[in-house]
């Protein structure tokens, strides 16, 4: 289990400083895949680097099963991480790259061959890391993460640069690792990518925690199932709905009502009983993507200029 408590990282000093991660508190449970979501620049990578003891938190703590990463004796046997696929010397072979990593944590060299086999790189193990395609580099990074057979795994944007077959492979791998009882944290800026992979979501924007929940709750809690109603007698209908204890909101241009928490049948029957003409009665099912965009909209660091 990974626990973040008030984790904060400020880059720079004074007025020009940036709060890359801002008072992040949450826990990432074992046995499930947790999607770590946020727009680009939201602080996902910085958070992961602090979990791995690479960056020093300005305040707060990140612990793995109660211990700070830097206190772990053979950390690769506890935590495996893929941060950047290109983190290998370009002139060293894939196998030799894994060999030195294994040596640091006294992992037997037979395990190097095992992980090469798991990620499907055995046939190119003698190729130089610099000549591998991005997809193969990702696999090499994943192989390095798996070396110590760790119970906690962190993957930063693991499907970047992968072909559809590779994406499916990563997805299956994550789910398998979680099913084995491991803690799996996978970051992504694309929700659609996580929807099929993750069980839980930790959503951040501008370094702040926006949501820590299950995928299902995340969708449910963000404007799903509203009903849109258009009618020439909109005010009357609005009054009736409010009278029935149903929450309504007028759309900004006043042409329609957005009704929350009432089935479409209830509204239709209510209108018919009162002789109200309806021009539209439709369910607005917010997609996962919309829910995500809605939540992170205020928190997008780099947006294109508004039209």
């Amino acid at each position, binding site marked *: 289990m990974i626990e973040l408590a008030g984790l904060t990282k400020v880059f720079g000093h004074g007025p020009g400083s940036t709060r890359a991660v801002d008072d992040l508190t949450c826990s990432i449970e074992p046995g499930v895949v947790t999607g770590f979501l946020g727009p680009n620049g939201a602080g996902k990578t910085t958070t992961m680097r602090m979990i791995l003891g690479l960056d020093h938190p300005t305040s707060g703590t990140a612990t793995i099963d109660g211990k700070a990463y830097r206190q772990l004796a053979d950390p690769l046997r506890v935590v495996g991480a893929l941060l950047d696929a290109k983190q290998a010397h370009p002139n060293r072979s894939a196998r030799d790259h894994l060999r030195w990593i294994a040596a640091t944590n*006294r992992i037997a060299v037979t395990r190097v061959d095992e992980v090469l086999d798991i990620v499907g790189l055995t046939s190119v193990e003698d190729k130089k890391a610099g000549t591998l395609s991005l997809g193969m580099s990702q696999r090499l990074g994943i192989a390095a993460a798996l070396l110590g057979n760790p119970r906690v795994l962190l993957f930063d944007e693991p499907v970047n640069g992968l072909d559809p077959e590779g994406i499916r492979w990563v997805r299956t791998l994550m789910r398998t690792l979680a099913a084995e009882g491991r803690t799996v944290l996978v970051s992504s800026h694309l929700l659609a990518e996580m929807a099929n992979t993750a069980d839980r979501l930790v959503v951040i924007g501008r370094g702040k925690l926006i949501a820590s929940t299950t995928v299902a709750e995340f969708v449910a809690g963000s404007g799903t199932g509203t009903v849109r109603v258009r009618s020439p007698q909109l005010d009357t209908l609005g009054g009736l709905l409010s009278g029935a204890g149903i929450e309504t909101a007028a759309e900004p241009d006043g042409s329609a009502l957005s009704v929350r928490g009432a089935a479409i049948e209830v509204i239709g029957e209510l209108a018919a009983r009162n002789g109200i003409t309806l021009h539209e009665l439709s369910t607005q099912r917010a997609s996962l993507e919309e829910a995500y965009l809605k939540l992170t909209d205020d928190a997008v660091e780099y947006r294109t200029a508004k039209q």
Partner: protein
Amino acid sequence: MTVQRTPRVAALLPAVAALNAERIKLSTIRSPLWSCIAAALLGLGVAALQGSSAYGAASLSPERAAVGVAVFGVPVLMVLSAMTMTGEYRSGMIRTTFAAMPNRTLVVVTKAVVAALFSALFTAVLTVGAMLVAGMASDPLIGAQLSLAEPGVWQLTGALALYAALAAVLGVAVGALLRHAAGAVAVLLLWPLVVEPILGNLPDIGSEVGPFLPFGNAFVFADVQWLYPSYSMPWDRLGSLLYFAVVVSAVFVVATVVVNRRDA
């Protein structure tokens, strides 16, 4: 998916694991080999020139025969030592290293130990090689002091090996501080080969700063004549060695503290 520990190896200290990892890193890429070839060509080439161009009644001293090793060979090895650090920063591999070994002091010390041992050993081989090459290139009378039977040859070999070891530690420290190969190479080559000779030869103050130049002291210790004038040193040869060692240690301590504090 099971990780097998080899019980024999598992009992060993993390330091041994770190040394082993550094050994694998150094031996699985080609650039160290090229640096060694460059150091050998420079060191032995100058020795051949010294041998063939020596004339007169006085025989060629081992120190003169080894000047190429001391002045060019060792700095190349120092740059190679720095590259063991800067190379990791360039590729981002340093993060893999620090994630695998969160004890950064251990990482830097291990790199320094490996670089020092390797540089010392290789410099010793080059020094002996320089004696042989210079001896072969000169006529027998002039090469009389270069025989491997002469104790002076072995004293010099030991002195240069010690100098190379300290220089390698300095190389690792400068590489860790600057992180970029270009900067580290500039510092490590300009410092001993240009900056110190200029400072030491300055008209009025040269004789005053001269005794405190780190590489100047290293050359005094190794008894190698380089572009420095002769000063009256405030200490003897052993003092010069200690002075150089203290400077190297200070830079190394600063580098280790900085590496620990810095975000990787």
